[in-house]
């Protein structure tokens, strides 16, 4: 299989064309928005917790992006459902990348982990879960 075929393998295109968890949740218990400064892509993540206020019952997303970012965010929603906020806060990006299962250059890596970063910011804001330096850039809010 060529690298190209690997990158756009069936499962990626399937998640891209039929994203799981696509759509806003209203009301949501936690939400955040983030951009990929390289291409202007945006993603907004919505989270609903279960009765314990900790377990992720439902997660949805909106936004636009390339096949990698959309498929990755779609896979992310499947990956985190049923886990607690603090589990997800400490979820290493490698777990998601394994799920995606294709070789990624550094620049496409940013596409793949945008959704995960935004989700971590949402949990950090709603639940005060830790946000390691790696993800803090997404939460900065200095502006003109």
């Amino acid at each position, binding site marked *: 299989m060529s*690298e190209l075929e690997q990158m*756009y393998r069936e499962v990626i*295109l399937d998640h891209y064309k039929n994203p799981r968890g696509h759509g806003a949740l209203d009301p949501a218990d936690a939400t955040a928005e983030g951009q990929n400064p390289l*291409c202007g892509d945006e993603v907004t993540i919505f989270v609903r917790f279960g009765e314990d206020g900790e377990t992720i019952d439902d997660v949805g997303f909106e936004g*636009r992006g390339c*096949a*990698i970012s*959309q498929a990755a965010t779609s896979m992310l929603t499947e990956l985190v459902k049923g886990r607690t906020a603090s589990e997800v806060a400490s979820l290493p990006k490698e777990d998601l990348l394994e799920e995606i299962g294709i070789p990624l250059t550094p620049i496409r890596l940013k596409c793949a982990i945008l959704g995960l970063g935004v989700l971590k910011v949402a949990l950090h804001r709603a639940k005060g879960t830790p946000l390691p330096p790696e993800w803090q850039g997404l939460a900065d809010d200095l502006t*003109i």
Partner: protein
Amino acid sequence: MAVSSAKALEVERLRADFAVFDELVNGKPVAYLDSASSTQKPRQVLDAMREFYEHSYANVHRGVYTLAERATEGYEGAREKVRAYINAPSNREVIFTRSATEALNLIAYSWGLENLGAGDVVVITELEHHANFVPWQFIAKKTGAQFAHIPIDDAGELQLDALDEIAARGNVKVVANNLVSNTLGTINPVEKLAVWAHEHGAIMVVDAAQAAPHRHIDVQALGCDFLAFSSHKVCGPSGAGALWGRRELLDAMQPFNFGGEMIRSVSLERTSWNELPYKFEAGTPAIAEAYGFGVALDYVSEIGLDAIEAHEHELVVHAMEQLAEIPGVRIFGPPADRRTGIVSFEVANVHPHDVAQILNWEGVAVRAGHHCTQPLMTRLGVAATTRASFYLYSTHEEIDRLVAGLLKVKETFGA
């Protein structure tokens, strides 16, 4: 296929100057279609810089010894080349910067901080590059000035009818526009804007980053007050750029960066500035890079800007014709005769990142993204586009490879 002016340019001979074209990517020669982002470098420039480093390198301006004299001569010689390239009246008005971006920041800070305030209006356009947008947005905010934009029409042309309404908002003090849009290739009417700006007592700032490599530039004919461009987009090294400004304006401005070389005298109580252009060149400049910038301008001038423009025009005509034949491909911006060698487009249902990624497997290098023009993207209703851009070394065959690659994109995505 018309190849007359391409022949006038002897593209194949020129390509031999660029070692990178021997490079294989995924087993294929590189079709480098991202020259609007940065150009490749000919051996003439690389050889000259090496020679400079080995025989004429020292810090500039202050050494009394021979190597320092040679370095200063090389550096100041490059300044004269920049002056001639843009037909500036004096090389004291030519300031070396890192880039067009830094040149535009210099104006925004040094001119803007002192001259803007509440009631004033800073005018940019909807198709500015962030480099000629965000500095003004920042300075406007900092000084309390209004930040207004000239909108574009659907073809990517500035809507000059909006000017009256903008003038009614306050004292127009700055008009800033790129001569060529890096996303659409649109050639903007900066001469007209300069007249309008001066009628309102404003200064006219021209971002020529995307124009200077491709067309004759004459600051006096443009009638502008400041003009900025970058070395790396005109076959020169990275790390160098130039700002031209009218002497009276530069004279009255405070410096931007502070340090060595830009001072006349320094004491604990009082510090005064060196004469132009040194007042604006704090610290050790990009010496060898400025020198290489000058060599690049020689290289391009020798080929001839008219020939380059004609060649790029043919390429863009060819590209637009070919792209228009692919179902689902939409081209943004004006017709070919209103643009330089730049084509931005979208492929229905495929994100530009994926387009560029698949093209790369075919050895075709294009840019995918917002091209540092997010307000323009918003206007076009997209997050990003795919952009192919050409230079003196680009060929019809590379465009044909782009087209073949796009068919592969569509196949992959079943689009």
